[in-house]
């Protein structure tokens, strides 16, 4: 530090320096002074937090929880969206045939369907295949062994041609009307419901995050305001000896900045702890369905954005309350 400041210490040259050079030096001095004042604000604000460790820690934890909540919501939403992403593409219509139909009759229906122009493909699943799949996924292998007959029907998985009325293609109606078909399952309808739920979740997160960002602003603003009140004598001394508003404001701005930054870090810790405590049961649950999906946590970009946004909120909150104090306290 002192090594950097060395050049400006140089004694005034004996001959008056050319004005261009003098102004350059003075600009450099001004920059150095500006930097020094920011160092002052930076460190004195840390000193202020450290001077009241308990109060500071409490404030930081309140902020941490306030910020952790929307972050957790977001995580749930983001994972749910990803989970649904695979299903969003699914366009298959699943037709469960009447149990009384035998394999030949099922094949006949399948080839009938294949001739339709609005059908791309039909996959037949025999009751035996269905049972094997069920045995593998459900974990009821032992119970299934106890069964005498296979209770599962034949299943046709029909892929319709894309385009047209996706919500209720004519194919769907025809299948439902067919006497050989027991039950038709088409994912589009519930996919619409799912995306509706996801949209609601998205909106909910925006609302909750906005409210809690506001709470963060208020908590930091109020904390800084109390600190300003505790330091009003100091502020008035500074004003009488010529401190500008910027100089007085700067340590408080850094204070708000620190609260925001530390609060965000605590929020990340909280989310990390929640994640790691839930990761194991969630993974077990997911594994029992399929291996395609992996629970993901907060990535670096989101964490960085949270920290930056929170620090900015702290800075802004401190700016608002110091400005209010300085305006209220100035001489008429």
């Amino acid at each position, binding site marked *: *530090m*002192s090594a950097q*400041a*060395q050049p*400006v*210490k140089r004694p005034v040259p004996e001959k008056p320096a050319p004005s261009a050079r003098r102004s350059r030096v003075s600009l450099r*001095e*001004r920059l*150095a*002074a*500006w930097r*020094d*004042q920011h160092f*002052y604000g930076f460190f004195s604000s840390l000193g202020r937090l450290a*001077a009241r460790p308990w109060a500071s820690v409490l404030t930081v934890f309140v902020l941490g929880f306030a910020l952790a909540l929307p972050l957790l919501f977001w995580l749930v939403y983001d994972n749910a969206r990803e989970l649904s992403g695979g299903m969003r593409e699914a366009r298959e219509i699943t037709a469960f045939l009447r149990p009384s139909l035998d394999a030949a009759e099922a094949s006949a229906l399948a080839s009938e369907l294949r001739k339709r122009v609005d059908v791309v493909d039909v996959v037949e699943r025999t009751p035996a295949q269905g049972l094997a799949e069920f045995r593998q996924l459900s974990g009821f292998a032992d119970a299934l062994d106890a069964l005498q007959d296979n209770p599962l029907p034949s299943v046709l998985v029909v892929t319709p041609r894309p385009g047209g009325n996706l919500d209720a293609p004519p194919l769907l109606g025809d299948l439902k009307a067919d006497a050989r078909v027991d039950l038709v399952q088409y994912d589009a309808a519930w996919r619409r419901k799912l995306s509706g739920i996801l949209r609601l979740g998205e909106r909910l997160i925006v609302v909750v995050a906005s409210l809690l960002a506001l709470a963060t602003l208020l908590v930091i603003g109020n904390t800084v305001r109390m600190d300003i009140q505790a330091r009003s*004598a*100091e502020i008035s*001394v*500074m*004003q*009488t*000896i*010529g*401190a*500008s*508003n910027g*100089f007085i404001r700067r340590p408080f701005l850094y204070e708000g900045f620190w609260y925001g930054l530390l609060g965000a870090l605590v929020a990340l810790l909280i989310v990390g702890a929640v994640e790691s405590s839930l990761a194991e049961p969630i993974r077990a649950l997911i594994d029992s369905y399929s291996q395609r999906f992996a629970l993901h946590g907060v990535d670096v970009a989101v964490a960085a954005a949270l920290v930056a946004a929170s620090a900015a909120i702290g800075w802004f909150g401190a700016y608002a309350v110091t400005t209010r104090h300085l305006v209220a306290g*100035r*001489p*008429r």
Partner: protein
Amino acid sequence: MIRFDNVTKRYQTGLDALAEVSFEIGTGEIVFVTGHSGAGKSTLLKLVSLAERPTRGQITVNERELARVRRSGIPQHRRGIGMVFQDHRLLTDRSVFDNVALPLLIAGTPRAEIGKRVRAALDKVGLLAREKASPVALSTGEQQRVGIARAIVAKPALIIADEPTGNLDPQLSLEIMNLFADFGAVGTTVLIATHDLFLLKRMRRRVLVLDRGRLVDDFHPEPAA
């Protein structure tokens, strides 16, 4: 250095703290302002430092008409004035050194220069050895000397002091006043509000006497026989 032209200050209560006061103080002069409490001494000093604005009249400080100093220019104006208070107003959460360094930090003095000038100022008031102490650990007289070091560290052309010896015993008061006299000797203008008549006699400097807001006397005591 300071000129008052028919200056009146009326507070919102309707009280005239100062009424049609005119005087002029030259560069390097040491001038006392005296009078009973409520005579307008503090108001006069506040007008010079722009803590208050006059209701009527014109004030010029260091060739600058104060009416033309806008609100944003007030900090800059105050940086040109060293201020000493009766209760010294030190910041108790930082060391003597940091207290004295504050005006330099505010003015944006280069860091390397700050150390030198703070030590020079502390040396001048005889407290160089105490730079790391907390102000609360000092005696009242020492605290006031730190306050004076803070006032002179930025080498202002004008020092104003409001009852700087109000809390001190006569011996300490005289020491403090002699400090101010030294600054006057090097060209700094010093304006001191006091009601300590004993000191006024000892110092033998120009005295402005206020009574209920009016300037009733402006004299220079003859050297005692």
